[in-house]
């Protein structure tokens, strides 16, 4: 909300002055500390104190100039000033605004003596825009015409005095949703008055009423008290719409509203000043002298003030909430909608030039109902925001009277006949408002805040913001409080405790510290995640963060089978499902880098993937945290991925994990979605499986290999081969580790035996290796594949696999015979159990 300092100062005598920057900064800081966050501080009206009223005495041509003229003005007390002016919208005798030499206009525009075409200009005649009074820059500001009698014109008088406003400051305040009272000047002024210990001076309108009593001129009726608790009306006759006084227009503009005519302006002024939205109807055009509030029928329409046709009603009911499907309309006595209650009035009865009588509506609506209707019709207005958050139900009469007073004053100022205020109000009040009562226990408040305030002090802090104490006020264990009517947010003790803290000052509360009684540490899976991340960066991979809400098309390109978790309200079709895997996102990340001439990258990501729970719909989806590594450097391929996996397994101390290349689709072991080989190269990828053992079920912890070339093509990657490693973090955490018990290393020398076998292509090297290891038995320290060869000397469908077996005994140096026996055992085992032969 935009709050001019001058307006606030009218309600409470603030010390801050727009001319004193430090005082304004101090005030802004207090607003901040009250929770009224100042998002902007704008100085306005610069120059208005220096610009003076002057009368045009003489206008003359300048030789050789056809755009500018020489103007002589009287700036009071017979002092004449000669200026050069380029505007043509005035004539001799007009009263204009003269910025003398030495004055400064908005935008730090300093007026200096200038010579144009040989004529000395001793100042400037100002336009509305130059003074930031209006957007008008077609000509200069003309404040009076000759002949028109205007007693307020006094030549030489500063423009600020003439207009009634000058240099000012406007605070742009962010008002929290729980403080609707501060969507008004009075509300902000009340908080400030309380903070500074100043009196709050509420407008107390006094009216001269005459003629026919209002209830005889119009009626009001409430059909839906669950949506509208009270509606009051005021009637004014003899209206002649005119412009509002300069000060009213100025304040509306500074607060961000457009002045229209004195009736509409008065309505808006009341809303800004008191926070009470209200609506003036042209009584003559209303059609039936009365207002009725009822729920809109399904499909009912209304043309609102902005000229749009709005469709009302017909919303589905939400749950068993009877208010959830209702839009509220204001109707005339013939039951025709004339306004959307609390949101916007209808066009049919807009106040215009011909308006002669006004029926003012001031109402109290159910906040959520207005909010829902506003959202339903897609209209968020100054009124709807205030109604939705809650308006003070006890100031309706004041607001109505204030409106009448402003209309009458404006008419007088404009020189039009003053309207007649019909005596009394028209009132429908089916649900009278009662104030909330709350018990505040000072010890509880002190304990929660960490303060030691006396009950008296708490009472003193709360009184200026409107809390009233019940009882004789003697300090008991508890304060019985009546909550101010303008604070719909306060319903229980803690709400009052917050007000105690706020009015006392958050910044004055002593800071204490409490130590946690426990030792903080990462849990096992969090530590694992961190170690894994570091292993992956050690492999040269940079960490990516790709979106989790993705394009279903991309997921399908990456081999996902569909059945995605769909976002009901996506922001774009390209971001409409939850990712089922990490492949698509990383493919796009590689593509991005490729497109920026960095194709050879390794990237990894840690993040959740989502899958529908098998079986019944409507269940919480499965969410699995995965880590995926994409290897897209030159020469990276499935072999690189395997090596990466071995680094990971070694670094994490994993044991027992098997690489299953042939099992393309492993059965689900526990019904949960698990890592699979979709999107991967069928013949160059495998699953990482912890096999079942004893009680333990089989667990697929990941996949390793190469991205399917079709996927690379689909994502437009130029790479020949791209390696891939994906792990499920929860399952990885559950995978068995190397035993943590130490095994003594032998002090005796070891012996190496090299064995090269010619092996059928169908036999995994791992099978040969395992056979060798078993055959070497206890003496086996390690078996390493050190050469793979295909070609000359080997039959088709065979390759040579060479292993180095290191043998060692823990308690003696191996004898040649032992080594020879072990070698024989290895050969026999391999040749005996596998389609493999020792190469000569």
């Amino acid at each position, binding site marked *: 909300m935009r709050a001019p300092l001058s307006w606030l100062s009218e309600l409470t005598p603030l010390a801050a002055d727009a001319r004193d920057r430090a005082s304004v900064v101090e005030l802004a800081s207090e607003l901040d500390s009250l929770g009224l966050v100042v998002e902007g501080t704008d100085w306005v009206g610069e120059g208005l104190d220096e610009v003076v009223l002057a009368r045009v005495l003489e206008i003359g041509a300048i030789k050789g100039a056809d755009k500018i003229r020489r103007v002589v003005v009287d700036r009071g007390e017979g002092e004449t000033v000669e200026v050069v002016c380029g505007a043509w919208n005035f004539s001799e005798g007009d009263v204009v605004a003269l910025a003398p030499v030495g004055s400064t206009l908005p935008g730090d525009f300093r007026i200096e003596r200038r010579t144009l075409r040989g004529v000395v200009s001793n100042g400037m005649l100002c336009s509305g825009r130059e003074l930031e009074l209006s957007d008008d820059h077609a000509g200069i500001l003309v404040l009076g015409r000759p002949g028109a009698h205007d007693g307020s014109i006094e030549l030489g008088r500063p423009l600020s005095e003439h207009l009634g406003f000058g240099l000012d400051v406007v605070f742009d305040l962010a008002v929290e949703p729980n403080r609707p009272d501060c969507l008004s000047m009075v509300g902000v002024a009340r908080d400030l008055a309380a903070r500074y210990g100043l009196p709050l001076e509420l407008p107390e309108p006094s009216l001269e009423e005459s003629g026919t009593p209002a209830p005889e001129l119009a009626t009001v009726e409430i059909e839906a008290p669950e949506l509208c608790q009270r509606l009051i009306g005021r009637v004014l006759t003899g209206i002649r719409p005119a412009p509002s006084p300069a000060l009213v227009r100025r304040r509306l503009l500074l607060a961000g509203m457009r002045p229209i005519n004195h009736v509409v302006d008065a309505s808006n002024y009341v809303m800004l000043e008191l926070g009470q939205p209200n609506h003036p109807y042209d009584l003559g055009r209303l059609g039936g002298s009365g207002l009725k509030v009822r729920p809109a029928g399904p499909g009912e329409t209304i043309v609102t003030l902005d000229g749009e046709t709005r469709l009302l009603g017909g919303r589905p009911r939400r749950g068993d909430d009877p208010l959830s499907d209702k839009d509220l309309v204001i109707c005339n006595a013939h039951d025709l909608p004339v306004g959307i209650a609390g949101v916007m009035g209808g066009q049919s009865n807009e106040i215009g030039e011909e308006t002669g009588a006004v029926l003012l509506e001031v109402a109290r609506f159910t906040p959520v109902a207005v909010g829902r209707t506003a959202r339903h019709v897609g209209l968020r207005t100054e009124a709807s925001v205030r109604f939705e958050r809650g308006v003070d139900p006890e100031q309706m009469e004041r607001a109505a009277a204030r409106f009448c007073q402003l209309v009458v004053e404006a008419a007088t100022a404009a020189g039009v006949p003053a309207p007649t205020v019909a005596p009394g109000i028209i009132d429908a009040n089916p649900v009278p408002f009662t104030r909330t009562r709350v018990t505040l226990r000072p010890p509880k408040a002190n*304990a929660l805040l960490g303060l030691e305030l006396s009950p008296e002090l708490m009472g003193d802090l709360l009184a200026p913001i409107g809390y009233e104490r019940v009882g004789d006020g003697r300090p008991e264990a508890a304060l019985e409080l009546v909550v101010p009517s303008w604070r719909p947010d306060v319903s229980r003790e*803690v709400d009052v405790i917050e007000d105690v803290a706020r009015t006392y000052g*958050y*910044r004055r509360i*002593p800071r204490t510290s409490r130590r946690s009684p426990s030792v*903080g540490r990462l849990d096992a899976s969090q530590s694992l995640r961190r170690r894994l991340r570091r292993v992956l960066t050690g492999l040269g991979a940079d960490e990516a963060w790709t979106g989790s809400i993705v394009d279903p098309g991309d997921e399908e390109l990456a081999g996902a089978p569909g059945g995605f978790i769909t976002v009901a309200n996506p922001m774009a079709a390209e971001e409409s499902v939850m990712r089922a895997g990490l492949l698509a996102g990383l493919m796009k990340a590689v593509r*991005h880098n490729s497109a920026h001439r960095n194709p050879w990258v390794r990237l990894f990501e840690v993040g*959740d993937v989502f899958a529908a729970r098998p079986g019944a719909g*409507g269940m919480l989806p499965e969410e699995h945290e995965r880590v995926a590594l994409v290897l897209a450097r030159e020469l990276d391929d499935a072999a690189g991925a395997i090596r990466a996996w071995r680094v990971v397994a070694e670094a994490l101390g994993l044991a027992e994990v098997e690489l299953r290349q042939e099992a393309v689709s492993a059965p689900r072991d526990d019904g949960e979605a698990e890592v699979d080989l979709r999107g991967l190269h069928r013949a160059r990828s495998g699953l990482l499986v912890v096999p079942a053992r004893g009680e333990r079920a089989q667990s697929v912890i990941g996949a390793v290999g190469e991205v399917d070339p079709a996927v690379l093509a689909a994502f437009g990657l130029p790479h020949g081969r791209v390696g891939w490693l994906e792990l499920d973090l929860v399952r990885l955490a559950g995978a068995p580790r190397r035993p943590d018990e130490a095994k003594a290393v032998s002090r005796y020398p070891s012996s190496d035996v090299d064995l090269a076998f010619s092996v059928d292509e169908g036999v995994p090297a791992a099978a040969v290796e395992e056979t060798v290891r078993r055959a070497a038995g206890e003496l086996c320290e390690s078996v390493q594949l050190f050469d793979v060869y295909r070609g000359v000397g080997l039959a088709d469908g065979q390759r040579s696999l060479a292993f180095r077996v290191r043998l060692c005994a823990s308690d003696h140096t191996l004898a040649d015979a032992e080594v020879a026996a072990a070698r024989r055992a290895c050969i026999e085992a391999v040749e005996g159990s596998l389609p493999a032969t020792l190469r000569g």
Partner: protein
Amino acid sequence: MAPESNLSESSPSPASEAALDPRQLGEIEAEARGGIEDATDLAALEEAEREALGRRSRFSSLHRTLGTLDAAARKDAGRALNELRRRIEAAADERRAILEQAEREARLSLDRLDLTEVLPGPLPGHLHLVTQVREELEDVFVGMGYEIAEGPEVETDWYSFQALNIPPDHPARSSFDTFFLELGEPGAENYLLRPHTSPVQIHLLERGRLPIYAAVPGRAYRRDTPDATHLPVFHQVEGLVVDRGISFGDLAGTIDTFVHAIFGEEVSTRLRPAYFPFTEPSAEFEITCRICHGSGCRTCSMTGWIELGGCGMVHPAVFEATGVDPEEWSGFAFGFGIDRLAMMRHGISDLRSFVENDVRFLRQF
């Protein structure tokens, strides 16, 4: 190296002069030393040694004359000759060491590698900046004795809103602000992408193990159109403390401790009133602007302060929803955006750099 002038002084016995001509010894020594000094490589040195002490050397022939001397003179002369030999050998050793060193140097020089001509090899990768900041924050919380708690990104209405005292008509609960999921039959439970990490607070409270000292880092989702300062997917961290007698003063002190650990002791904090449905009293916390150190600049809109996050005392309604007695227990929560913090600390002008995954960006941190 022994100076040559030592020679006469160290001559052991003037008595032997009668038998061996000391001048002759001096000549031999000088000649030998000359040869040794002149040797420029090890082969030449060997040759010089041979010339000085070898079988055909003057020294050897002199040595052979020893037999012709009487016993006493032989003893003296023998000693003198041995000492001469030792001196010459010492000089040769000394020279050898120098030459060996020079030869080694020469060999190494030939082996020179221009260390700047080495071709680039693989480098370690980089953790995402958001990960780095998150881990740093986690470490501070761990240091404060907090557990690190996590929860799912898909949540129910209860955990995201209801239990957090967020009223049904709150804008956050609308489909304008929060992503909802379509799962199975209509009318079934509303699943959504958590709009904050606070549902984990509810999980922690429902767990029923009190007191709680926990930090909750994680990913959250809001329907914000991506721009320089918004992403629909972002990271948050929040702290939750629930214990007996926890006060607003403890909250302010804890934020102080935390901010000092992250930003340094010179950074101050302050609280100002704010509104969140799940805390009361609620506050926003600010830290001194790190650009102007509090004197006011454009970054902090001349206030000297930068807003970091929200905080407050756990609302009794949240305790009531989770079966915790607000008369016995009290607590506070505070949270902020990890991405925003990273942005602020590293002068990143556009949040979208975080999700572009351009290695030219990722490798800077």
